[in-house]
């Protein structure tokens, strides 16, 4: 049955080469923890992706309840946290996942750095990886404001003050993010849009680039 469906699609779209590029490759011994336990350091990239998927899924469920305005933002998060079935767990996953993804990504970056895997011909993939790092930091920063509690409000004020101290462009960046002269309703909707639409879109594009490059260049050899 499955074979028939596959063949039917393959006849029309020739998907076998795509499938081969995506999935059909060998995992060499030096990155396989089953052979050398110390090779677990090579798992951090995959775990980062795994947590990122959790973030996307839990975030999608959170937006079912979250309302980005200054009165209902807190109310909806409180409702989600205390009333909605499993809401506390889904929000917990998104909250802790945000920290975990930073940890995993940091460990992955250190692994790539200390194994010298960013060296030729993989320079571009390192640069894309660093851009992913910055996007993730941006996601953490914008997501922190969304519950609209006092902690979020004051942290965002401090962040915007720091942005403001950059010469020439600082005040422009601040006003762009803040959407006016105070941290208020506009700030919240902007951070929401950046957190839910802009940065995830950039993130997905960068991730696709990251993965295509890995498959194209193969994993770096043993040291």
């Amino acid at each position, binding site marked *: 049955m499955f074979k028939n469906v596959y063949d039917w699609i393959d006849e029309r779209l020739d998907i076998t080469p795509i499938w081969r590029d995506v999935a059909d490759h060998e995992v060499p011994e*030096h990155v396989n923890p089953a052979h050398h336990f110390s090779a677990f350091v090579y798992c951090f990239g995959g775990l980062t992706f795994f947590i990122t998927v959790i973030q996307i899924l839990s975030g999608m469920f959170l937006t079912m309840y979250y309302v980005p305005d200054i009165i209902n933002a807190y109310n909806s998060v409180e409702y989600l946290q205390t009333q909605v079935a499993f809401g506390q767990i889904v929000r917990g996953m998104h909250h802790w996942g945000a920290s975990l993804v930073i940890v995993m990504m940091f460990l992955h970056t250190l692994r790539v750095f200390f194994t010298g895997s*960013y060296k030729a011909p993989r320079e571009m993939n390192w640069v894309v990886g660093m851009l992913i790092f910055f996007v993730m930091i941006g996601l953490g920063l914008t997501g922190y404001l969304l519950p609209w509690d006092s902690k979020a409000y004051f942290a965002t004020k401090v962040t915007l003050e720091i942005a403001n101290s950059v010469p020439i462009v600082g005040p422009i960046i601040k006003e762009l993010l803040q959407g006016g002269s105070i941290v208020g309703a506009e700030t919240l909707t902007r951070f929401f849009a950046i957190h839910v639409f802009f940065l995830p879109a950039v993130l997905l594009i960068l991730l696709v680039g990251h993965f295509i490059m890995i498959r194209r260049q193969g994993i770096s050899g043993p040291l």
Partner: protein
Amino acid sequence: MARIDKSEEKVVFVGDSRVRKGNGFITPPDYSAYPGKSEAFIPNFLLKEWMVGVVVLVGFLVLTISEPAPLGYPANPSASVIPMPDWYFLFLYQYLKYPYASGDWVVLGTLGIPGVAFGGLLLAPFLDRGKERRFYRRPIASSLMFLSLASIVYLTNVAWTHYVDELEKSGQKPEHIQRVEEAREKRAQGLPTSNAIKTKEISIVDKDDPAMESYKKATCISCHAADLKGGAGPSLRGIGDKHDKEAILAIIHNGYNNMQPAYDNAIKAGLTDEDIDHLAEWLAKQKAEQ
């Protein structure tokens, strides 16, 4: 860096065009070039990865269930909260407090040093171009990274210790902990635990009742306002949820907290005992929920 020096060779063009032929794609070594036993990604290795993923997921869910995500009180610009960014920004936050990263030197702090550090990290492959991959044979790159790691750990720790100190000094509790404790107490007393901001205006019940006139006559309005929303005194809208008729009568006679007894003034203003009784009855009817 694997750059092939082609200066000795004569220039090669693509076909009969003037397009110079490049060096071509650096074909990655085949897996069979690596020593040891390789393993197919699908299904063998993927299955193992899957199992690791499941273990990680279970651990992660245990964490989320045992430690609910923190939530404080609704944002309030006049609240006294020690501002703290998320933990992974603490090292930057702390570093910006140092003299050469703030004040007159703030540009060095916000752009200079982070620019060099993050720019260097971004461009690492173009700065560290040697062929050597082992970290102990790359002393400059590795020691810079170790130095950065040490300073990140140090700065994060200083920021956190300082925060804990400040909390202790000011006797403050982080709002998310305060909220949970308060909710627990309220639940034990059977009160609603929500901190949600209520925007629904409570309306006046039976606005046309003659008691409204007595209310205005009896000088109540000087503190509680003509629309019952309060001024010097609290709002009386929805007061029936808090006090019944007897309690309201007692307050009119004896005062309440900072409120002076109002009974004598009311009598002086020409109200009868009957009017005051009716006024108290009407106030007791002022409930938020109909």
